[in-house]
Every structure is written in C-alpha cells, then in structure tokens.
C-alpha cells in the first residue's frame, strides 16, 4: 500500500468499514511510515475540530419540539389539509 492509497482509505478505516485484507495492509504501512502516522493524527484532529468547535457553546442542541408548535401545525393540517399540500 502506498501513502496515497492509505490516505484514500482513511475514512473507511476510521469508520471500521475497511475490509480486513486492506486494513492489515493499512496498519502495516502505518507501522513503517511516520508521515502517514502524522497525517492520520492530523486528519482526526481536523475532523474533531469541525465537529465540536463550530457549535456555539459546545452544547448539543435539543431536538425537543415545542408542544405548542406541534399542536398549531396539526390544527392547521386538520382545518385545511388540501391547502397545506404543495
């Protein structure tokens, strides 16, 4: 496996979807190539930064929908169902 192939496979490796044969080659290459070890570490850091730092306060947003909104939408749907459908 070349450095190029390793970098192409990083996401599947991280997801755990890389087939066994390629995973072995991937890890063999990592054991021999310091540059790819560094690249993998920096890739992981970049992904984590993208996932966490864009959040306004590192808080997950609640997916709870206000009951009043649900009731309003359902009431409108019942009152005039045809006009609500595009």
């Amino acid at each position, binding site marked *: 496996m*070349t*450095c*190029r*192939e390793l*970098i*192409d496979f*990083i*996401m599947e490796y991280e997801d755990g979807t890389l087939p066994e044969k390629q995973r072995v080659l991937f890890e063999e290459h990592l054991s021999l190539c310091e*540059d790819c070890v*560094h*690249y993998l*570490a*920096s*890739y992981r*850091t*970049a*992904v984590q*930064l*993208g*996932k966490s*730092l*864009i*959040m*306004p306060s590192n808080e997950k*947003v*609640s*997916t*709870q*929908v*206000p009951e*009043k*909104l*649900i009731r*309003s*939408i359902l009431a*409108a*749907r019942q009152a005039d*169902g045809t006009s*609500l*459908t*595009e």
Partner: protein
Amino acid sequence: MHSGPLFATIQRYLHHEDDAWDALQETFLSAFRAIGRFDGRSTLATWLHRIAVNAAVMKWRSRRRTSIRSIDDLLPSYYDDGHRRDPGPAWGSLPLDRIEVAEMRELVRQCIAELPDIHREILILRDIEEWDTATVATHLDIEEGAVKTRLHRARQALRTMLDPYFREGSP
C-alpha cells in the same frame, strides 16, 4: 412560541441575527407548506431540524462574501510512486496558549466557509448535524458513494487549511 433549539441550529451557520430570524421564519413557512408531505418516518423534530438546516444553508449561501477555495488545491499531492509531496511536520497539540477557544472556533468556521458548496454542505450535514450517509444522499439526491467521497475530500481540505496553525514549532 419556543423556537430556541431551531434558532440555535440556524445560528451555527448565520452570524447575523436578522439573517437567522429570516431563516427561522422561512423554516416555519416551509414546514407549514410541506406538512402534508410529512410521512412520519422520522420524528417531527428531525423533520423540522432538516428544514431549518436547509433554510440556514440557503440563506448563508445567498449572503456569502467569503471567497471559495479550489478543492484540488486543498488535497494532498503525490509523486508517481504514491509518496506524498511536502508531508510537513507533525501537528502539535491544540495551540490554545496562542489562540483562544473562541478564535479557534471562528478559524474552523471560516475554513469550512471557504470549502466549495458541494463539499461544505456534506461536511456540515454529516459531521456537524450527524445525519447518516443515506439521509444526506437522499437530501442532496446523489449516490451514497458520492457523499462518502465528498466528505473525505472536505475533511482533507479542512485539515490542509488548518495545517499552518498546528504544525509543531509554528509561531
């Protein structure tokens, strides 16, 4: 009406409060118009969340002033034998002694903003909104393989843009 969670979602993409309120209003209008197509396969919360993200991204795109980088310029380049050109030094730890957390967040946000639309939107939907690959593929009407390819490229591009700030020994 308590619209805090949806508004918070929208504010991840829109810094200007007026734009965020516009996008929230558009979210409710879109939901109202499309409620007849809500089939119950997802929760109403998830359905509204997707509409809010879409409204925010559309508003953000219309107001964008950031110049967009070429994805090819942000991907690694290789020699014919597959070795990477200019591998550079390892990344050090997060430079939080030099950059405040708020500055770091803004830096990452700016880097993401410079990605081409097709890569930025997939990075947002997969990595930040945590939609699964199939949902993103359906939402954007593309193959799941294309979602994976674009996400990997977007992540590599983000890594390239952050590289100068994290190299060991960088100022």
